[in-house]
Every structure is written in structure tokens, then in C-alpha cells.
């Protein structure tokens, strides 16, 4: 969140970026590495004039992000899980998923820089 603040985002965007990163880190540890303490999560932050980019990679078997249901649909509204990735997508401008070789998943979160 400090990096987002230094990049010039306002409090609301810093909160959104911070929450998206936390949710993605939880996904990497819980759903990616499945709490395996021997597997690592790699994290990097970069920004230029246009984009603030966060990359998070786990070493797990991965799962199909495209098959996750929309938690806002009436039939999913009372589910007790399944909102993390939805919040990430809502709070960031871009969200990409890449399978890693030989194992693992890397997610890339991008927030567009605000013009000053």
C-alpha cells in the first residue's frame, strides 16, 4: 500500500489496490499453494507513468479462473465464499492470469495511473 501511496493514488484507490493484493495473496497461499509451507509466493510491484502493476505467483497446481461463478447472481448471493476474485477484478483495471512452467499460476493486477 505504501508503493501505491507513493505512486500518487488517493486513499480510496490505495484501499482498493491493497485489498486486491491481499485477496490475491490469500488466493496464492490458500488455493494455489494449498498452505504448503515448502511452496513460495513471489510478489513484485512496478509502475510507470501509465500503469501500476502487481504480479503475484504461486507454485500450486492452479485452477480455472474462467469457471468461477458470479457471486452477485441470485443463486450465489448467500454463498459464504467465492467473492475474493470478484473483488480483485472490481478494484483493478486489468486482471490477467498466466500458467507457469512447470507449475504455478501468476496473476497480474494493473491499476491505471491517475493523471496529475
Amino acid at each position, binding site marked *: 500500500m505504501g508503493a501505491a501511496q507513493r505512486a500518487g493514488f488517493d486513499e480510496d484507490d490505495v*484501499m482498493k489496490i491493497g*485489498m486486491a493484493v*491481499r*485477496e490475491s495473496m*490469500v488466493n496464492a497461499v*490458500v488455493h494455489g499453494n494449498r498452505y504448503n509451507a515448502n511452496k513460495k509466493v513471489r510478489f513484485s510491484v512496478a509502475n510507470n507513468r501509465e500503469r501500476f502493476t502487481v504480479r503475484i505467483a504461486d507454485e500450486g497446481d492452479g485452477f480455472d479462473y474462467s469457471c468461477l461463478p458470479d*457471486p*452477485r447472481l441470485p443463486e450465489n*448471493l*448467500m*454463498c*459464504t*465464499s467465492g*467473492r*475474493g476474485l*470478484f*473483488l480483485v477484478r*472490481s478494484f483493478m483495471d486489468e486482471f490477467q492470469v498466466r500458467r507457469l512452467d512447470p507449475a504455478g499460476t501468476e496473476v497480474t493486477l494493473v491499476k491505471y495511473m491517475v493523471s496529475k
Partner: protein
Amino acid sequence: MSVKLNIRQVGDVSLVDVAGRITLGEGSSTLRDSVREMVSKGQKKILLNLGEVSYIDSSGIGELVSAFTTVTNGGGQLKLLNLTKRVRDLLQITKLYTVFDVHDSEVSAIRSFS
């Protein structure tokens, strides 16, 4: 700071002052266990005061849904009081805002229980 709960009895309403972080792990399980305990003791009217909640993640939101379902299935009512802007925004984004009965005043919230 992890979540801290303080339960007050106001008439037949159990008012739970929730402070801190409702997140994956201890924060969400503490809330879940407390709500289940209240329901098992026969409490039917539960009001969660979220005014001092500093952070909530998707697991925490899931626990609010779980608490709502637990209380409703037990024949009771669970309502929310004093949402912070962030919690309110999250409930609106996830379309849960309409599921919960949300109040800004403790007195009106307590009166609203049938």
C-alpha cells in the same frame, strides 16, 4: 489488531460491538463461533455493530452471510448497525446490501426487531 467482540444485552436484543479486522482466520472464526453460540442459547435477535471494523476481506463478508444464514435458520433475525463506508461499499459491490437490514441508529435498530 484482530477482531474483538463485546456482547451487550439490550432488552431481548443481543448487541454485538465488533471492532478490528474481520479477515480469513481468527477474525472470521471468532465472529462465526460467537454467533453460533448465541443462536444455540436461543438468542433470536442479534444486532452486529460494525462501526469499529477497520478492515474486512472476502472471507469476512462470507462470515457475515454465514451469520445471517445461521440466525435466520434458527428462526431469528440478524441486522447490521453503523457500517463504515468501506464495509457499505463492499456490501453494495457484492449486492449483499439488500440482503441485510442495515441501520445507522442503535435505537431505531433495536426498535426494528419484531
